[in-house]
Every structure is written in structure tokens, then in C-alpha cells.
């Protein structure tokens, strides 16, 4: 495992404003941020980078001197077995801090990968850490974000460990729809699903043919409809029932 960031810097500060707006929007869902806190976040030195789909942003074992914020696009965190089998442990969308743990843990214990062409903003970890200690509201918001991440991981363990294939996929769709809506992407009923069947399979512990079959079953049962990458939840109550989905674990903020 390399300690060197695996990509050439293509950063500029041109989109720093958008990066600041995204992280402020995200943290404001977690806590009531004052004007001075918002201004301090906006003044962080964001290094903005465009990355293609599939690019690894962080690799397990790497020392991470910067924290990375997803400004546009979609990403996942994943871990690999020794023989290369991948388990995706979370999906992320705009505004998410992809590696908040690196404020306090120096070395990455998992991989972070873009799953679509994405805009990333890097912030020196020490600068964000300083804000977390000196501004209690910002510190609390980041702490809440970590706790909600952990809550989502717990729900995913339940999903992969104890639900059948159809429920796992339905659950992943319910969660993604709820999080898209919170991030201002779609109305909660209709959203872009950027993951391939293979990625959905890696997130739910299923093979991609099985995922395809379960998506078809959900369509046939009238729970969802699909047009290309766009998914429409035709019957929320039905999908939620199939999924065993109760959004309380998202704490209304993720």
C-alpha cells in the first residue's frame, strides 16, 4: 500500500465556493450553524479536483493528510478481501465528507472510490481539525456526522446479514432515495441511480445477475419503475414494506 496520494493534482480554487456551499449545507442539516461558523468554513483552503468514475480517492493503508468532500457526483467506501472480492460499505453523495475519520485517525482503514465522474474538494486535515476544536458547533456537527455514519453502517450489517435479496435491494433504494432528497437531489420519489448492478451487488452481498433479477421483481410488483439510470418509486409504502425500511437510523439529517 502506498503512502502517496495516487493521483496528479488538477486542483484549482475556482470551485471552492461550491465546495464550501455543499459542506455548509450538509453541516447545517446536522446542527444550527451561525453566520460566523459558516464564514470560517467558507474560508477553508479547498483544493478542487475533477475525477473520473472509478478513481480511487483514498486507498487502505495510506496516510491521509487531507480530508475529502464530495462536491458533485457519487462515491463509495469499500474494503477488499485478500483475493480481491469487494464489499461496498456505504454510498455517498454531494456534501458528504468522505473520510472525516482522518481528522483523528492517521491511516486509512478502507478505500474510497468515485462511482461517477465527480468533483472533489480536499481540505488540509489540520485546518478542519482546528475548526472542530475552536468552534463547538462545527465540532458537534462533525461528531454527529460520524455517529450517523456509524448508524448507517449498523443498518447495513443488518441488511446484508439478515434480509433476503429482494429486501436488501429495496432497502438500499429507500435509503438512497431518502438521502438524495436530503441532499436536494430529486424529490425523494424520482432520482438517478448511478451504481451499476455489480456495485449494487457489492453493497448488498449479491451477484450482479441476482441484483438484476431482484430489480426486475421490484418493477414487476409495481414498487419501482426504471428508465435508464433514473428510478421512480411508484409505491413508497410497498417498497418500504418489502425493504423493512424505517428511516429513523438516518436521524433525519444524512
Amino acid at each position, binding site marked *: 500500500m502506498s503512502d502517496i496520494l495516487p493521483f496528479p493534482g488538477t486542483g484549482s480554487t475556482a470551485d471552492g465556493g461550491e465546495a464550501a456551499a455543499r459542506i455548509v449545507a450538509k453541516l447545517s442539516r446536522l446542527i444550527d450553524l451561525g453566520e460566523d461558523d459558516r464564514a470560517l468554513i467558507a474560508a477553508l483552503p479547498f483544493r478542487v479536483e475533477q475525477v473520473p468514475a472509478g478513481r480511487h480517492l483514498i486507498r487502505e493503508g495510506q496516510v491521509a493528510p487531507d480530508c475529502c468532500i464530495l462536491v458533485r457526483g457519487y462515491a463509495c467506501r469499500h474494503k477488499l478481501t485478500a483475493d480481491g472480492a469487494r464489499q461496498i460499505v456505504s454510498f455517498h453523495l454531494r456534501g458528504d465528507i468522505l473520510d472525516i475519520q482522518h481528522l483523528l485517525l492517521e491511516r486509512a482503514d478502507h478505500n474510497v472510490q468515485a462511482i461517477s465522474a465527480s468533483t472533489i474538494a480536499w481540505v488540509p486535515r489540520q485546518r478542519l481539525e482546528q475548526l472542530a476544536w475552536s468552534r463547538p458547533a462545527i465540532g458537534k456537527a462533525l461528531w454527529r456526522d460520524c455517529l450517523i455514519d456509524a448508524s448507517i453502517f449498523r443498518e447495513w450489517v443488518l441488511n446484508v446479514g439478515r434480509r*433476503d*435479496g429482494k429486501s436488501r435491494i429495496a432497502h438500499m433504494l429507500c435509503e438512497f432515495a431518502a438521502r438524495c432528497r436530503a441532499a436536494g437531489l430529486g424529490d425523494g420519489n424520482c432520482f438517478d441511480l448511478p451504481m*451499476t*448492478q*455489480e456495485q449494487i451487488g457489492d453493497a448488498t452481498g*449479491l*451477484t*450482479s*445477475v*441476482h441484483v*438484476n*433479477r431482484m430489480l*426486475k421483481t421490484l418493477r414487476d410488483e409495481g414498487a419501482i419503475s426504471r428508465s435508464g439510470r433514473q428510478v421512480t418509486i411508484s409505491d413508497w409504502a410497498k417498497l418500504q414494506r418489502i425493504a423493512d425500511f424505517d428511516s429513523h437510523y438516518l436521524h433525519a439529517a444524512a
Partner: protein
Amino acid sequence: MVAVARYYFHLHECGTIIPDEDGVEIEDPADIREHALREARGVMAAEVVQGTLCLGCCLEIYDENKRLVLTLPFKDAVILAGI
């Protein structure tokens, strides 16, 4: 950089075809059968958990030029004993 070939795993379920529109990248064509076995066994395992198993289904694997490269009947994906 050499482009990795993409293969499409269409599922034939005794009259119903579930086409694979995403496909999967497989670097070495020698790995296609192994991949197909994992896919077939994944579907079959979930069926067994639900209490049914159809051995009449199959996977058809096509390359990017829509050429059939492999057919894998489910009955050939497992060793059956004791029946």
C-alpha cells in the same frame, strides 16, 4: 491502457429472459466460466433459501459484439448428489 472487455449475463428463466444491460468487465476471457458459475450459484442459492430450485434455467453470456460466448445451464453449475 488496454480496454477491458465487457460481457453481458442474460438470465433465461424457463420462458422469461432478464437481459443484462450493465454488463461486467472481465480482464481474462478464461475467467468467464468461473464468473458465470458464481452468478448462477448466487441465484440458485437464493432460490434454495426460499425453498424452490429450478434447474431448467440458464445463463447466456454475450460479448460487446452481441456474440454468444457461453451458455451455462444451471444444472451444470452444481454437483447434485443423493437424488
